[in-house]
């Protein structure tokens, strides 16, 4: 019973962050799920002792990182290792205490402050998963215009989020 509770609580607590980290490394959603599962199994079948959520999250990220490198072992080169190092640095920025909650809260507030046209573009791309061509038609822009608009909105969102997290 105790083990089941620990399993459930550990998986529920860490799965979202671990999946995001794997997707940050470049995994698609299905691969991220597979590797996250492997990382949890490895953690829970080993000599695991939960000391602190942040330590568990760090352990899982290190494990996931290695699983990812292992899966790409035929392709892996030092560049990949450096890329994973960079991903770790970015992760530390977005989740300084091992928790991305602050990032998501800032994102929500920044999304709420977007001008209507920018918000519409973001909703079409990430909410409705429209292609660039479809967006161009709906927004009455050229495809290049859509690309530029999305780049600008993302840049402005990033600035806003970084500003909010800093303060």
């Amino acid at each position: 019973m105790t083990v089941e509770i620990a399993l459930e609580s550990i998986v529920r607590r860490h799965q979202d962050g671990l999946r995001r980290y794997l997707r940050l490394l470049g995994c698609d959603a299905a691969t991220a799920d597979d590797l996250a599962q492997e990382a949890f199994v490895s953690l829970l079948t080993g000599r695991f002792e939960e000391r602190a959520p942040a330590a568990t999250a760090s352990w899982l990220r290190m494990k996931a990182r290695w699983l990812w490198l292992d899966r790409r072992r035929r392709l892996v080169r030092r560049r990949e290792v450096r890329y994973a190092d960079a991903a770790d640095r970015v992760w530390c920025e977005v989740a300084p205490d091992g928790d991305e909650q602050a990032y998501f809260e800032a994102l929500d507030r920044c999304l709420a402050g977007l001008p209507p046209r920018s918000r519409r573009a973001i909703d079409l791309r990430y909410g409705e998963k429209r292609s660039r061509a479809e967006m161009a038609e709906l927004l009455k822009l050229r495809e290049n215009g859509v690309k530029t608009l999305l780049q600008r909105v993302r840049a402005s969102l990033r600035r806003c989020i970084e500003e909010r997290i800093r303060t």
Partner: protein
Amino acid sequence: MSTPDRSPEEGLRDRFLEIALEERLGDDPPADLTDRVEAAMARREAETYRTGAEPTADPARVVELPVVDPDGARRRRRPWWLAAAAAAVLLAWLAVPTPEEDPAPVEPAASKDITGLVVDDAGTPVQGARVLLELGWTGCDAGHFTWWKGVEQRQTVTGDDGRYEFADLPPDAAGVLWVAHAGLFGSVRGRGEMKIRLQKPGSLRGRVTAPKKSYFKGMKVWFRGPYGLTHAKIPTVALAKDGTFTMDGLPGGPGEVVVQYHNWAVARKAVEIQPRKTVNAGRIRISGHTPQGPDPLVDATEVKMVDGKGKPFPRVNMWWRSPWMDGGMNADGDGIIRMVGGGVAIGPPPFVLILNSTTVDNKPHYGTLLRIRGKTATVQVRPCIRVNGTVRRGREPVADFSVLLRTADRAPRVYGGQVRAGRFDVTVPPGEHTLFVILPSGEVEERKVEVKEGEDPQILDVDLNR
């Protein structure tokens, strides 16, 4: 991606934002992995049971590399990350260029070493000293040394020149080194080249104070050595009748004295051990749950729960804490909670009554200790009041803030509120409180407020301009 000189971090920041946006705005939330993990663990267990051996590794599993320890003994199991780091080095070395990438020359990644010199207190290199290494690694909380304790310990012996070396460590490996040699001790923390200076041990004395002297009998006192080293653990010592203690043979450097009374209370005090000297840690007070705290310590064996009119209050649930364990129970039909007997063997009093843990049908209540007669303590239980409201500055609503309410008692309690969509919500006992509104800028606003009994919920809007 758009500019050639863009750093990988820039691209990754964009990628994280895209992941977050897809998650926030998409309509297909990611699935819960609990069942998958449980099923995978069951499969693994079944395979182990069927074959009597560890399941074979699938392509995504960790490869456990055989590692040879300093004594030459072949060791099958190593921590995952050591295998991971070694494999990463190997894989980097074996790297095959992918068709879509430039065939740049590939060099094997260099593994990092921890090396250095061990000298005695006169500065002479020490030959044949056993050097123990506990490895750790720094995670996101860079700057702090995050321990994954017990993950990896290695040892080696210094050579003729007093030098030691730990090779083939994971990249950026950092660790604590510990040497105990011929009555001298030394420790150092860091990475790369490190010199360890051995010193004579020191001693420590101190005195523990507690609400009752009888508590000294069950107390344990120990010393945690420099950097929390496993090797540097010092056996527990007992307290004298007057609460004093002494410890000898302690390694020099930072450490802490820990005093524990069963599972009840822990006190810690940082100390700096001086070689050849006796350091006085002074008084260490066990005061976690004493009569001075918000929760009363009672010698009673049962608690009678009564309502506002003094009538027995059945169905009240309350938690208490004893030196041996914590417990919680519903009052019986007569409003009595028996902390001793009743089939529950949790040891004799004293007990700490956790008065703000009282609930009735899962609704928060609060308790007040009315009296103790013989072995029966009487606690009056009343419902807490829900208070909610908004915070604004003039006409402008304030969106980001947090709220705390502190009772006006001599031993105050603090209640945290939830804030959603600019509205706070907190459940507190009635009476006078101090309301704290904390803004992201660090600004803290204080207001005296009165939560009236009987009105539930109560609205409390705060104007920061007033």
